[in-house]
């Protein structure tokens, strides 16, 4: 199984721990990741301004992957949603496809053919690798951990672009991927809430208030860490955690880790090789439980 590795805007600059741990986990379970020169922004930010232009940006990336002959795998949920949605729209609407291809061919010399799929890495792990196979690579006991799964929005919705394979009201794949390690994926109120990342540029106060809701609820439910699959959710819950604490005069100190970092730990990889030094809210206690080493 080999995929074109689509990093988007945020991961390669602000989430190196996610990228590092994802590459390690991919290699361990036998997923090939090909880096394609020329992959750029998926187009998500432009859609507010002009959807046709946003579609063109998505098509640029899709056609590039097609040229190389690989399905796309993304680490960012917004990229997954944007590219999967574009892929579906262009496949299903011949008129739209024609108009986009005209402009695409003019500006890039390529055309979109609709020959590939787009999948989020967590989806690849669950569907293409499978829990059984992942279990075969695990060697570290994480059963002492109580973790809070944050699915985010674009990984699940709109459900029809993902062929409705997971019900956004009762999702399970992220819980399953956490629990395969032995860790508990706890129940908590407001599990389905958005991180607020989509409005950060427009209104920071509103966005921080949204992120705060979840941090509050996770801490109240006794979660030891929030588990993420999207870099922008990380910007909200981790990079902005101190800001939220100050703005709302509260204290969380809640570690935020990526699913791939968790899986890496379960596979016996050390925190350093999973980029834990880059985690801003230090996961000292959590890591001590896993590695039995107080000094991490």
């Amino acid at each position, binding site marked *: 199984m080999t995929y074109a590795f689509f990093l*988007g805007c945020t991961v390669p600059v602000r989430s190196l721990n996610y990228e590092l741990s994802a590459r390690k986990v991919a290699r361990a379970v036998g997923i090939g990741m090909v880096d394609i020169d020329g992959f750029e*922004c998926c187009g998500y930010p432009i859609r507010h*301004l*002009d959807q*046709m*232009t946003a579609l063109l940006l998505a098509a640029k990336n899709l056609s590039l992957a097609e040229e190389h002959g690989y399905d796309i795998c993304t680490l960012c949920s917004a990229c997954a949603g944007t590219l999967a949605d574009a892929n579906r729209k262009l496949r299903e609407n011949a008129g739209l496809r024609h108009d986009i291809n005209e402009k695409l061919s003019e500006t890039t010399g390529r055309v979109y053919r609709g020959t590939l799929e787009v999948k989020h890495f967590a989806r690849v792990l669950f569907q293409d690798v499978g829990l059984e196979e992942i279990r075969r690579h695990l060697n570290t006991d994480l059963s002492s951990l109580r973790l809070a799964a944050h699915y985010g929005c674009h990984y699940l919705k709109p459900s029809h672009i993902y062929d409705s394979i997971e019900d956004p009201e009762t999702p399970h794949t992220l819980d399953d991927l956490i629990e395969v390690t032995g860790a508990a994926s706890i129940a908590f109120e407001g599990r389905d809430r958005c991180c607020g990342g989509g*409005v950060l540029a427009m209104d920071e106060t*509103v966005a921080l208030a949204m992120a705060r809701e979840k941090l509050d609820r996770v801490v109240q439910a006794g979660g030891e860490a929030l588990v993420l699959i999207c870099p922008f959710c990380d910007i909200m819950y981790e990079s902005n955690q101190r800001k939220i604490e100050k703005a709302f005069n509260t204290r969380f100190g809640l570690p935020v880790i990526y699913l791939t970092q968790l899986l890496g730990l379960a596979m016996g990889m050390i925190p350093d090789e999973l980029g834990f030094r880059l985690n801003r809210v230090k996961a000292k206690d959590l890591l001590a439980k896993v590695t039995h080493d107080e000094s991490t």
Partner: protein
Amino acid sequence: MIIVSDLDHHFKDEIAKEPGGEHITRCFSCGTCTAGCPVREVTDRYNPRKIIRMALLGMRKAVLSSDFIWLCSACHTCYERCPQDVRITDLMTAIKNIAVRDGYTPPPFVLQVSLLKEHGRLYEIGEFENQKRIDLGLPGIQENPEEIRRILLSAGIEEIIKSST
């Protein structure tokens, strides 16, 4: 107060013609969208049911010049739950696209366009960023914004976005 003679009853048709806005007239104001909205949970400035009602009534200027249409976080909760398949997230996007063409582009998005034109991404990957990547054993990335620049130019994005007041 709503002055009936100021209403533009073609506004809903204008929205219905915009990609994503096709289903606006299906809305029967049940409020399921507002009830589940995570933005609404933290601020009452954002109210999708109200926005759609205003649009259907024809309050064109009030809607397009507002800041509240920009508060949708695109979480798609309303999209999934709407009993009438209005596809509210796409509808908000359609309304924003009309607002932009009418001259209401919020400054953060003007900035994002220039970042994309310059770097191909919202964040620069320069020498400093690449060094961090290489130090971690990650492959370096060469910025290559030529294609994106051509696309943004051919789409006339500069003409589409005019400064807002």
